């Protein structure tokens, strides 16, 4: 470990990315075997998904409200406040929804996945499973990975719905944009394919894969000490955040 410390950050990051990629292959190979543990996957969807609902919904509401407020302010310069709903919806669907949800997910669920698997590693639970002839990749890692991929798009969609609701609350209820105008402008411009499928869903699924992979990988390769678990948790947040934003740029440049 200490010999590796000496190498540059770049080499180290590359090595991490490479190891992570190999881990992904192992994980993908284990997914068919993990279908026997469907119940475990369901349980993980509950933990990483449903338990993140509160934070995602709250943040979605506030993001929508802030956007409504700011856009109303800016658009009123051009006399275009009726476009508030449109711009709130598009900004949330294409960028803020998937990205903020993924960041929240990395902080809320990603860390808990890493810490949980890390502690299982530190307390020999993974080895114990190996000894009980249960493949921990299939039983522990894959269900959490799958749960993340399922949960993040759902959370992203909920975030978007709350965001639009928040924008409506501020724009229509408080600032007095006409309700019909708000919705008709939105429905005239927002496109299912471009904004919902390519925006919310596709990005969320991509982020779900990346965040879950990083969280599971960091947990699985944690040095079996309490310090190791702490570092791994931090690394999950840092690596996920960078990966989300970088991937967002790449995806956007392909999708737009």
């Amino acid at each position: 470990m200490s010999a590796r410390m000496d190498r540059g950050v770049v080499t180290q990051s590359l090595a991490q990315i490479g190891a992570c990629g190999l881990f992904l292959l192992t994980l993908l190979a284990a997914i068919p075997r993990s279908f026997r543990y469907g119940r475990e996957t369901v349980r993980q969807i509950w933990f990483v998904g449903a338990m993140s609902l509160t934070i995602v919904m709250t943040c979605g509401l506030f993001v929508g409200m802030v956007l409504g407020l700011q856009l109303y302010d800016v658009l009123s310069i051009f006399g275009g406040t009726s476009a508030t709903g449109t711009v709130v919806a598009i900004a949330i669907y294409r960028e803020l929804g998937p990205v903020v949800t993924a960041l929240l997910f990395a902080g809320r669920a990603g860390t808990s996945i890493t810490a949980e698997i890390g502690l299982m590693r530190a307390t020999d639970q993974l080895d114990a499973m190996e000894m009980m002839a249960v493949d921990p990749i299939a039983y522990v890692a894959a269900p959490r990975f799958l749960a993340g991929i399922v949960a993040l798009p759902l959370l992203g969609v909920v975030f978007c719905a709350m965001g639009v609701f928040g924008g409506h609350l501020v724009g229509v209820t408080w600032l007095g944009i006409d309700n019909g105008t708000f919705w008709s402008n939105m429905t005239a411009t927002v496109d299912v394919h471009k904004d919902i499928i390519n925006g919310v869903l596709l990005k969320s699924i991509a982020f779900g894969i990346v965040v879950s992979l990083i969280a599971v990988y960091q947990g699985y390769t944690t040095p079996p000490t309490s310090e190791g678990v702490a570092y791994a948790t931090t690394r999950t947040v840092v690596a996920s955040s960078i990966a989300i934003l970088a991937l967002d740029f790449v995806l956007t440049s392909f999708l737009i």
Partner: protein
Amino acid sequence: MTQRRSYAVGTGLFIVLGFAALAYLATQTTSVANARQGDSYTLETHFANVGQLKARAPVKIAGVRVGSVQAIDLVPGKEEAKVTLSIDKAHEDIPDDSVATIFTSGLLGDQYVGIQFGQSKKALAEGGIIGLTRPAQQLEEMIGKFFGGGSAADRLGGTYKVTGHFTNVGSLQAGAAVKMSGVPIGSVDTVVIQPGHLDAFVTLAIDKRYAQIPDDSAAAVFTSGLIGSQYVAIQPGGSPEFLKDGDEMVLTQSALQLEDLIGKFLVNGSPSDNKNGAGKSGGQPDASSGK
């Protein structure tokens, strides 16, 4: 085991909530909300130019959405676009002499197909053809019709110079076009402030070919397009005498701010003397002058 079942129930609820939110977003906040997928029938139209019209663009009658554009193809062997419209079964009473026009919603909005009813008692049936159409109007053309437009004049035959005083030239610069009836006839030579004056002194170099400009003509600073560059428009007067080299044009109209222009357009119908008869109420383009 009860513990596990509660996870399953909770997870199920979570997934249902997610899909409900997705369904809500997809159907209530997007164009799908407009596309009621009821029974529909198709009509066919032919346009000389569809502009930016896209498939799934709305089809409206009197501003009310009645269907959408199903497909846009080229008519084989012709420079003509075939547009297939999908119209709700609820609106089966479109007269067969109706007119289909491609409109732009607002100044910068998307294009859509508008149908204006004719007088015929016969309604169009499935697969019917709307014979009378008006092609898409490019925004540039529309605005050009109001304000003139085009490129600077070629100066093959040499120029003569006339001058004018403007209280405000906006962002007019030397080299800008001088147009009459929208046709470039010269260019702006200099824009300066003369010593002792508070207004701008503009020298125009006008092509010798256009020597017969009445000497009581007015010069105005206009903007080509919404965000285009400014130019000087000459509005001919009625005097039998013509402008000569070195003459000063007495009647001038200073640059208008874009906001003023749009304001005038929206309120009064036209910012200037309505040369082209454009700007009928509701902002609909006048198709007759398009070709």
